[in-house]
């Protein structure tokens, strides 16, 4: 490879970190979902890089499955967002306190 694997992985980690920060430190539910998407994408990048280095299709296969999972998760997450928005008229996470048993 003309670019060392370490660099690609470093990029992947950086993307993941940004995504994690977005998910942890934003107050709107939407941004949590966006953060998750970014993290998933970072993982996919690392997977494909591994596939390239070890010349194995499995990394890319997994990326496909991962993309499908991300899609499913986004669907449910967004409908959850809609549901919450209808109930409380705000997408604010701070309001959500009743998840206790």
């Amino acid at each position, binding site marked *: 490879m003309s670019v060392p694997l370490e660099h690609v992985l470093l990029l992947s980690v950086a993307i993941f970190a940004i995504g*994690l920060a977005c*998910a*942890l430190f934003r107050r709107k539910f939407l941004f*949590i979902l966006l953060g998750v998407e970014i993290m998933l994408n970072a993982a996919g990048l690392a997977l494909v890089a591994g596939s390239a280095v070890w010349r194995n299709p499995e990394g890319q296969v997994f990326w496909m499955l991962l993309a499908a999972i991300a899609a499913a998760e986004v669907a449910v997450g967004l409908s959850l967002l809609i549901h919450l928005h209808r109930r409380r008229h705000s997408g604010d*996470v701070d309001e*959500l*306190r*009743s*998840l*206790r048993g």
Partner: protein
Amino acid sequence: MDWVLALIPLLPLLGSLAIVLGGRRLPAAAPGIIATVSVAASAAVALLLLPHAAGEGIRSRLFVWLSSEGFAAPFGLVLDPLSAPMAAMVTVVSALIHLYAAGYMREDPGRVRFFALFNLFVFAMLIIVLADNLALLFLGWEGVGFCSYALIGFWFREPKNAAAGQKAFLVTRVGDVFLLVAVLWLLSRLGTTDIVAINAAAPSLPAAGATAVGVLLLLGAAGKSAQLPLMTWLPDAMAGPTPVSALIHAATMVTAGAYLLCRLNPLLSQSPAAAAAVAAVGALTALYAALCALFQREIKRVLAYSTMSQVGYMLLAAGAGAVGASLFHLIVHAFFKALLFMAAGVIIHRFGGENDITRMGGLRREQRALFYLFVAGALCLAGAPLTGGFFSKDAILLSVLERGGGFYRLLFGVAIATALITAVYTFRLLYLVFLGERRSPPPAHPHAIGRSMMVPLWPLAALGLLGGLGNLPGGGWLDGWLAPVAQPPPPASHAAEWALAAAAALMVLAGWALAHRRYRGAAAAAETGLARAFRLGLFADEVVRAALVRPFHALARFSRDWVDDRIIDGGLRGAARGFGGIGAWLSRLANGSLLRYRTALGLGLLGLLAFAVAVVWRP
């Protein structure tokens, strides 16, 4: 043929089982009859086998009871010259007392329990008598202890009775521990609990060890035989029904200690120090108990202390090495003491449940037969010449005197003095109960004394009076019979024998005279301080209470309040509180806030990633 020997203890055991299993369904008199018949059958077997017990005797090994590496304790019985007369006495006297009890307990609602226990007791006692090894003997030892506890506290609904039973059990238990230590030590040293083997191997023991074992055996015997210092239970044990007192606390259990010391006499005599200790304990107890008996008010307590005193004589003889004399006195004493106790039961009945002798009197006129019977017993107890008691006590005194040495001469003096006091308290009892005017009104509804209660008294009187024939001085039959298992008594000069007999007779007459002067007409005068001290057994109970019971209670209280409550419970409570606190602190993590959960999720994720990196890190 040897299984016949096993019948002797087994018949009463079967009787007990039969009573337990079927007692309730059978008619009211059945338990008493079954019990009496089984013991009587056992007595018949014992008497029939008596001639076969000479010399080597009969042995019977039924099965191996305990067995482990290098040690085996069989269920083995032996009928030899020592155990045969003892077994015969135990069974015959038991049978007579059972007959008495059948009448005495006829209407008691607990008679099934009573007779079952009574028979069980006889079984256990016979095990002690007939066992050929100390392990089996210990089984019987514990058995009589338990039965005694159950029978003393028979009317347990009255707290006093239950307490008396408990006291008996606990005090004798102390003695039992010493006996157990002795048995175990012998086992570890000699590798066996077989009595014959132990006696044979006795010379091989070191002097210190022999003395230690001897002292331990003495303490064990002292517990069961109510000798100093473990005697406090016997006077209180009179709370049980009269047949119990007659059987257990006159004829059988209290003599088990003396019997044990006779059985192991070769071992005991290896240590002159231990033997001397035995003799000393016996003599001192005899003196102490006689003095206490002199000042008792309750008739059965007089007899209880009297028993303690007479058993002291038996121990004195055993310590002096005179097994024959000890056994002789044991057997004769059983006869007349059982008689006296059973008569006391009738007497108490006659006075409507009153047992304070200062309130009795004048019974001679009402109950002539009872009077004669009691006189017979009293004469034996006092050692009046030509009675069985006279010869047996004389044999003991002679053997102590002939033992030689200043120490034994001192004990002889104690024994002679005790004989005098014995005479005094015996005649005191006679005068206060039977002679003079009746000091309390007759009971409103006197129960008729069942014939079954009076019948056994006659043979016992006869045996007591004539028992002297069993071992006349100067080579008696019993001494000859015991020759294979016991040392023969030292030969004494005729002059010494006659002098001693005269001295003993003198004591009896002097005692009678003193009692006559003091107690003839009046009832007891006001009690002096000294008299009260003796009546209370020289405050032995108080000494035990202060020295043992109070510290024990204090320790128990301390354990409860400090160790149990504060340390253990407090520790547990503290631990529980700690856990509760941790739980409460942790539960703050789950307060329902999505924000908090999100943060936790993120932190956990980072942690996992860090861990994964650390695992695969290869610098």
